[in-house]
């Protein structure tokens, strides 16, 4: 299983801080597409993805136990 984290406006849309999902073997792009459709998430094309706290590319394959996070454009500072 995989913990999938949401932040900022995605968290507001979902009303959840995270979901437990079986994403093993899926690419980042595949998981993102599924999530976008299932939860009607807005503007996911601007959202980056992190696996285990490091930015991941769209074709990276998710392993069992990986923590995935969707990272909207940041606005710290």
């Amino acid at each position: 299983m995989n913990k999938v984290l949401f932040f900022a406006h995605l968290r507001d849309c979902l009303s959840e801080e995270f979901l437990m999902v079986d994403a093993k073997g899926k690419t980042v792009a595949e998981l993102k597409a599924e999530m976008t459709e299932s939860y009607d998430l807005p503007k996911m094309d601007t959202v980056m993805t992190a696996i285990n706290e490091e930015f991941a590319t769209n074709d990276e394959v998710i392993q069992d136990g990986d923590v995935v996070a969707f990272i909207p454009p940041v606005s710290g500072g």
Partner: protein
Amino acid sequence: MNYAISKEPIDIQAVIDKVIQREAGAITTFIGTVRELTHGKRTLFLIYEAYEAMAVKKLEQIGLEIEGRWEGSKVAITHRLGRLEITDIAVVIAVSTPHRADAYEANRYAIERIKEIVPIWKKEHWEDGEEWMGNQLETVAYPGGKPEEDDLVE
């Protein structure tokens, strides 16, 4: 630890103390504060949220980038989370270097990188609404005109 996320007000002197070194002739600090007006629109307060573990890692990465690029530099960064009022401090960046030109350049590099790669988000609260900045959603209309991200992210 030179890189931190804080739910309490940031002690500027404590951040500076982390970069003091006998080889340094210059220390610069950048202190990001909550500004009341942007293009005439009045901010009431802000909320900062972070992916905390990753944010600390990315701050560390920025410090390593700087120490690799500006010889003899030392870096410390603390970013605040939670609700911030006008004039409250959101971030403190301290950089020490042997020579002063480097201290300015390296410090500027740090704040620009924070705005690129550190998973921290700011929700602006105005009299007539609220919005996560940087989200480019355009899903909420603000009668007073929505401020541009580039003008806000400081």
